[in-house]
């Protein structure tokens, strides 16, 4: 599903955020991406979502070589990826329902389908009763779950999450990780960047560790 071949990322500032990263994730696999702050976790996820382009090497997602995806195709490419951000990226002037419906509206689903899918998605994250609320009235954990509902509402084959449990208490964090496990169980590929080592050490998933832009450890390769 995801393959990095000698991928490097140098920002315009000249900073090498990633250097010669190689790994492969099979479809349906779940993995954690960890490392110190500034190690390049977010940069790696951005390469996968085409929020940044590689400077050297290749990234292949869903059998597509990303360096060959032209700018105008990027939106269509992104519709196949559910992205969850640490800062949620929710729209505060729209209700929870409207936020979650946005990817479906963009993809041109019918009104009827949208209602069904949004409710299913909100039900999955346990927020069905809050569909008419505005995100600002929700707790941090709830906002994060709205973000997750939006990311999975059009059932993408790949989910990327950047510090999804960033400032949540351990209980909520475990709950959110549980959601990702559920998605993984039904065949979705899931890659979660986090530095919550305590949490991921309890879970039986692959861990990729970055240090100063280099992939220094891959628990599965061992």
């Amino acid at each position, binding site marked *: 599903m995801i393959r990095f071949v000698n991928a490097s990322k140098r920002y315009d500032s000249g900073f090498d955020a990633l250097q010669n990263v190689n790994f492969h994730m099979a*479809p349906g696999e779940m993995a954690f991406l960890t490392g110190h702050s500034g190690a390049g976790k977010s940069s790696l996820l951005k390469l996968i979502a085409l929020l940044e382009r590689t400077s050297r090497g290749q990234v292949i997602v869903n059998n597509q070589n990303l360096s060959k995806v032209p700018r105008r195709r990027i939106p269509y490419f992104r*519709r196949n990826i559910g992205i969850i951000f640490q800062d949620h990226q929710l729209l505060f002037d729209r209700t929870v329902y409207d936020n979650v419906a946005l990817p479906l509206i963009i993809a041109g689903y019918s009104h009827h389908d949208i209602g069904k899918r949004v409710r299913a998605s909100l039900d999955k994250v346990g927020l069905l009763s809050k569909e008419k609320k505005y995100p600002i009235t929700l707790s941090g954990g709830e906002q994060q779950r709205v973000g997750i509902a939006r990311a999975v509402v059009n059932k993408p084959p790949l989910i990327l999450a950047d510090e999804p449990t960033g400032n949540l208490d351990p209980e909520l964090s475990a709950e959110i990780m549980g959601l990702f496990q559920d998605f993984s169980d039904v065949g979705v590929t899931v890659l979660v960047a986090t530095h919550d080592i305590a949490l991921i050490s309890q879970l039986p998933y692959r861990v990729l560790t970055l240090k100063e832009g280099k992939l220094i450890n891959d628990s599965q390769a061992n």
Partner: protein
Amino acid sequence: MNTQTKQRDNQARPGFITLCRSYFIRHIQVFFYSLGQLSRTPISSLMTCMVIGIAMALPTGLYSLLKNAQQLSGGWESTAQISVFLKNNITSAQAKKLKSDITQWPDVISVHYISREQALKEFQELSGFGNALTALNSNPLPSVLIVKPKLSKTSERATQRLLKKLVNLRQTDKAQLDMQWVRRLYAIMNIVERGVLILGALLGLAVLLVVGNTIRLAIQNRRKEIVVMKLIGGTDAFIRRPFLYTGFWYGFFGGIIAWLLVSFTLLSLSTPIEKLTTLYQNQFELTNMSFLTTLTLLCLSILLGLAGSWFAVGRHLRDIEPQ
């Protein structure tokens, strides 16, 4: 991708028909959504529309007045006549002979003879200098032939030729075309027309810039929304759409305001102008904007609104990329 995902995927994507229908519905939704957005900030929206309206009303109003002036003066050219003042030694019989000669000319409609005595009488009646003139022992006025030339739109040169022929007559003292002022008026109106066109072009550009700037601000205000849309796969067309419709509404309401302004101005002018023209023994009614002019105004205004937002969106949407 395993089979499970694939299956789910197939049923996940909307079909072609659904896509077309949602696309259409989406357009209508955004159409009214962008209207709703404008009504959220009624004062600033109204101000923008007013600016557009005034900018559109100025050239439109001037154009309407100009059209009216052209219509009013349209008949004046046919009043053209050449006054041929005959030499003092020409007798009345000679003048009459000349009159019937000229009447035969192909580019002449009619010739009217005013004898010296007649001229004096008319002058005495009209000027009130009657007594002063009787004090003179001889009649100072020449006899005159009033020649009406045949006229068509392109007869300018023919008229000049006729004038020359009349000037060169042995009997003529002086001949003059009493149409110079109509000519001048037409020339002035031509200049004014061009001026209105240039003014219209400049103000059209102003509308373009006003809409462009307003949309630029709107884009900046909704930066976060645009970023989110891009993050979850919104195409440029999708993101552009509400802004384009906003531009459409600005143009539309600006056009309506312009129409109202011009209509009311013309309406309020019509009574005094009618009074004025009656003083000149002229029946004239100020015509308001025709349906076609109104339609053109509205279409132009909408077009400018759309174009302005198109430029703004084209320039600024690309700059906003998720980080």
